[in-house]
Protein backbone atom coordinates (compact mmCIF):
# COMPACT_ATOMS: atom_id res chain seq x y z
CA UNK A 1 0.00 0.00 0.00
CA UNK A 2 2.83 2.38 0.64
CA UNK A 3 4.30 2.06 -2.88
CA UNK A 4 0.96 2.46 -4.66
CA UNK A 5 1.52 6.00 -6.01
CA UNK A 6 4.92 4.99 -7.36
CA UNK A 7 3.37 1.97 -9.08
CA UNK A 8 0.71 4.24 -10.53
CA UNK A 9 3.41 6.46 -12.01
CA UNK A 10 5.09 3.43 -13.59
CA UNK A 11 1.73 2.20 -14.88
CA UNK A 12 0.82 5.53 -16.47
CA UNK A 13 4.24 5.74 -18.10
CA UNK A 14 3.95 2.25 -19.58
CA UNK A 15 0.39 2.95 -20.77
CA UNK A 16 1.60 6.08 -22.54
CA UNK A 17 4.44 4.09 -24.08
CA UNK A 18 1.97 1.53 -25.40
CA UNK A 19 -0.03 4.37 -26.90
CA UNK A 20 3.04 5.73 -28.69
CA UNK A 21 3.97 2.34 -30.14
CA UNK A 22 0.50 1.37 -31.33
CA UNK A 23 -0.56 4.79 -32.56
CA UNK A 24 -2.03 5.29 -36.02
CA UNK A 25 -2.18 9.05 -35.94
CA UNK A 26 0.56 11.56 -35.21
CA UNK A 27 -1.74 13.78 -33.14
CA UNK A 28 -2.78 10.78 -31.01
CA UNK A 29 0.94 10.06 -30.59
CA UNK A 30 1.64 13.56 -29.28
CA UNK A 31 -1.14 13.25 -26.70
CA UNK A 32 0.33 9.93 -25.54
CA UNK A 33 3.71 11.63 -25.10
CA UNK A 34 2.03 14.13 -22.80
CA UNK A 35 0.54 11.23 -20.81
CA UNK A 36 4.08 9.87 -20.32
CA UNK A 37 5.16 13.30 -19.09
CA UNK A 38 2.33 13.43 -16.58
CA UNK A 39 3.56 10.21 -14.99
CA UNK A 40 6.75 12.00 -13.96
CA UNK A 41 4.75 14.67 -12.14
CA UNK A 42 2.92 11.99 -10.17
CA UNK A 43 6.23 10.36 -9.21
CA UNK A 44 7.79 13.65 -8.15
CA UNK A 45 4.88 14.67 -5.94
CA UNK A 46 4.58 11.22 -4.41
CA UNK A 47 8.23 11.34 -3.37
CA UNK A 48 7.81 14.64 -1.58
CA UNK A 49 4.64 13.78 0.33
CA UNK A 50 4.68 13.55 4.09
CA UNK A 51 1.86 12.08 6.16
CA UNK A 52 -0.39 14.51 8.08
CA UNK A 53 1.49 17.41 6.52
CA UNK A 54 0.02 20.36 4.71
CA UNK A 55 0.91 22.56 1.74
CA UNK A 56 4.17 24.56 2.07
CA UNK A 57 2.47 27.96 2.14
CA UNK A 58 3.10 29.77 5.41
CA UNK A 59 0.48 32.51 5.18
CA UNK A 60 -1.79 31.27 7.92
CA UNK A 61 -0.12 28.27 9.55
CA UNK A 62 2.42 28.37 12.35
CA UNK A 63 6.02 27.97 11.30
CA UNK A 64 6.42 24.72 13.22
CA UNK A 65 3.71 22.83 11.28
CA UNK A 66 4.81 19.85 9.20
CA UNK A 67 4.78 20.58 5.47
CA UNK A 68 5.47 18.56 2.35
CA UNK A 69 8.59 19.07 0.32
CA UNK A 70 8.51 22.28 -1.79
CA UNK A 71 11.47 21.43 -4.03
CA UNK A 72 9.79 18.64 -6.02
CA UNK A 73 6.70 20.81 -6.37
CA UNK A 74 8.77 23.54 -7.96
CA UNK A 75 10.20 21.07 -10.47
CA UNK A 76 6.75 19.76 -11.42
CA UNK A 77 5.26 23.26 -11.69
CA UNK A 78 7.64 24.65 -14.28
CA UNK A 79 7.69 21.32 -16.07
CA UNK A 80 3.92 21.31 -16.68
CA UNK A 81 3.91 24.67 -18.39
CA UNK A 82 6.94 23.98 -20.54
CA UNK A 83 5.61 20.58 -21.62
CA UNK A 84 2.65 22.27 -23.32
CA UNK A 85 4.93 24.37 -25.48
CA UNK A 86 6.92 21.28 -26.44
CA UNK A 87 3.67 19.48 -27.34
CA UNK A 88 2.68 22.42 -29.50
CA UNK A 89 6.03 22.07 -31.26
CA UNK A 90 5.45 18.34 -31.80
CA UNK A 91 2.03 19.10 -33.29
CA UNK A 92 3.62 21.66 -35.62
CA UNK A 93 6.00 18.92 -36.77
CA UNK A 94 3.01 16.65 -37.35
CA UNK A 95 1.32 19.34 -39.46
CA UNK A 96 4.42 19.78 -41.57
CA UNK A 97 4.77 16.04 -42.00
CA UNK A 98 1.15 15.88 -43.14
CA UNK A 99 1.75 18.50 -45.79
CA UNK A 100 4.81 16.65 -46.98
CA UNK A 101 3.54 13.08 -46.97
CA UNK A 102 -0.21 13.47 -47.29
CA UNK A 103 -1.14 11.32 -44.32
CA UNK A 104 -0.86 11.36 -40.55
CA UNK A 105 -0.18 7.67 -40.17
CA UNK A 106 3.30 7.06 -38.77
CA UNK A 107 3.38 3.63 -40.35
CA UNK A 108 3.03 5.09 -43.81
CA UNK A 109 5.78 7.63 -43.54
CA UNK A 110 8.93 6.55 -45.27
CA UNK A 111 11.28 8.17 -42.80
CA UNK A 112 9.55 6.74 -39.75
CA UNK A 113 9.29 3.22 -41.10
CA UNK A 114 10.94 0.75 -38.70
Amino acid at each position, binding site marked *: *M*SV*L*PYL*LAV*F*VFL*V*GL*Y*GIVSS*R*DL*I*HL*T*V*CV*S*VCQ*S*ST*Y*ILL*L*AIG*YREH*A*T*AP*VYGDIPASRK*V*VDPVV*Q*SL*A*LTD*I*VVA*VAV*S*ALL*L*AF*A*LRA*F*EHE*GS*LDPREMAELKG
Partner: protein
Amino acid sequence: MVPLQSIALLFVALGALLVVLVRDVVRQALILSLYGFALVVLFLVFQAPDVALSELVVSAVAYPLVVVAAIARIAAHRKRRGE
Protein backbone atom coordinates in the same frame (compact mmCIF):
# COMPACT_ATOMS: atom_id res chain seq x y z
CA MET B 1 -2.92 6.55 2.95
CA VAL B 2 -6.06 8.62 3.03
CA PRO B 3 -9.03 7.00 1.19
CA LEU B 4 -9.45 10.17 -0.89
CA GLN B 5 -5.96 9.65 -2.26
CA SER B 6 -6.78 6.08 -3.28
CA ILE B 7 -9.86 7.26 -5.17
CA ALA B 8 -7.88 10.00 -6.91
CA LEU B 9 -5.20 7.48 -7.91
CA LEU B 10 -7.87 5.20 -9.32
CA PHE B 11 -9.36 7.98 -11.43
CA VAL B 12 -5.94 8.95 -12.76
CA ALA B 13 -5.19 5.36 -13.75
CA LEU B 14 -8.57 5.08 -15.48
CA GLY B 15 -8.10 8.41 -17.23
CA ALA B 16 -4.67 7.49 -18.56
CA LEU B 17 -6.02 4.23 -19.98
CA LEU B 18 -8.92 6.02 -21.63
CA VAL B 19 -6.72 8.71 -23.17
CA VAL B 20 -4.53 6.11 -24.81
CA LEU B 21 -7.27 3.73 -25.93
CA VAL B 22 -9.50 6.34 -27.60
CA ARG B 23 -8.54 6.48 -31.28
CA ASP B 24 -10.60 9.40 -32.57
CA VAL B 25 -8.49 12.51 -31.97
CA VAL B 26 -11.39 14.90 -31.32
CA ARG B 27 -12.68 12.66 -28.54
CA GLN B 28 -9.16 12.25 -27.27
CA ALA B 29 -8.80 16.01 -26.87
CA LEU B 30 -11.87 16.06 -24.63
CA ILE B 31 -10.74 13.07 -22.59
CA LEU B 32 -7.30 14.64 -22.24
CA SER B 33 -8.95 17.63 -20.62
CA LEU B 34 -10.84 15.37 -18.20
CA TYR B 35 -7.63 13.48 -17.43
CA GLY B 36 -6.01 16.81 -16.62
CA PHE B 37 -8.85 17.50 -14.21
CA ALA B 38 -8.30 14.13 -12.50
CA LEU B 39 -4.62 15.06 -12.17
CA VAL B 40 -5.62 18.38 -10.57
CA VAL B 41 -7.62 16.52 -7.92
CA LEU B 42 -4.68 14.18 -7.33
CA PHE B 43 -2.23 17.06 -6.95
CA LEU B 44 -4.58 18.79 -4.49
CA VAL B 45 -4.86 15.66 -2.38
CA PHE B 46 -1.06 15.43 -2.39
CA GLN B 47 -1.00 18.90 -0.78
CA ALA B 48 0.44 20.70 -3.79
CA PRO B 49 -1.81 23.71 -4.63
CA ASP B 50 0.71 25.44 -6.90
CA VAL B 51 1.15 22.39 -9.09
CA ALA B 52 -2.62 21.85 -9.14
CA LEU B 53 -3.16 25.46 -10.28
CA SER B 54 -0.59 25.04 -13.02
CA GLU B 55 -2.11 21.79 -14.30
CA LEU B 56 -5.62 23.28 -14.11
CA VAL B 57 -4.89 26.25 -16.34
CA VAL B 58 -2.87 24.14 -18.74
CA SER B 59 -5.36 21.32 -19.17
CA ALA B 60 -8.35 23.65 -19.41
CA VAL B 61 -6.91 26.21 -21.82
CA ALA B 62 -3.65 25.39 -23.52
CA TYR B 63 -3.77 21.68 -24.34
CA PRO B 64 -7.30 21.55 -25.82
CA LEU B 65 -6.58 24.62 -27.92
CA VAL B 66 -3.40 23.38 -29.57
CA VAL B 67 -4.77 19.88 -30.16
CA VAL B 68 -8.09 21.07 -31.61
CA ALA B 69 -6.38 23.76 -33.69
CA ALA B 70 -4.07 21.14 -35.17
CA ILE B 71 -7.04 18.86 -35.92
CA ALA B 72 -8.92 21.73 -37.59
CA ARG B 73 -5.90 22.58 -39.71
CA ILE B 74 -5.59 18.97 -40.86
CA ALA B 75 -9.30 18.84 -41.67
CA ALA B 76 -9.05 22.05 -43.71
CA HIS B 77 -6.07 20.68 -45.62
CA ARG B 78 -7.87 17.41 -46.27
CA LYS B 79 -10.95 19.22 -47.56
CA ARG B 80 -8.87 21.32 -49.90
CA ARG B 81 -6.99 18.32 -51.13
CA GLY B 82 -10.16 16.40 -51.69
CA GLU B 83 -11.89 19.05 -53.78
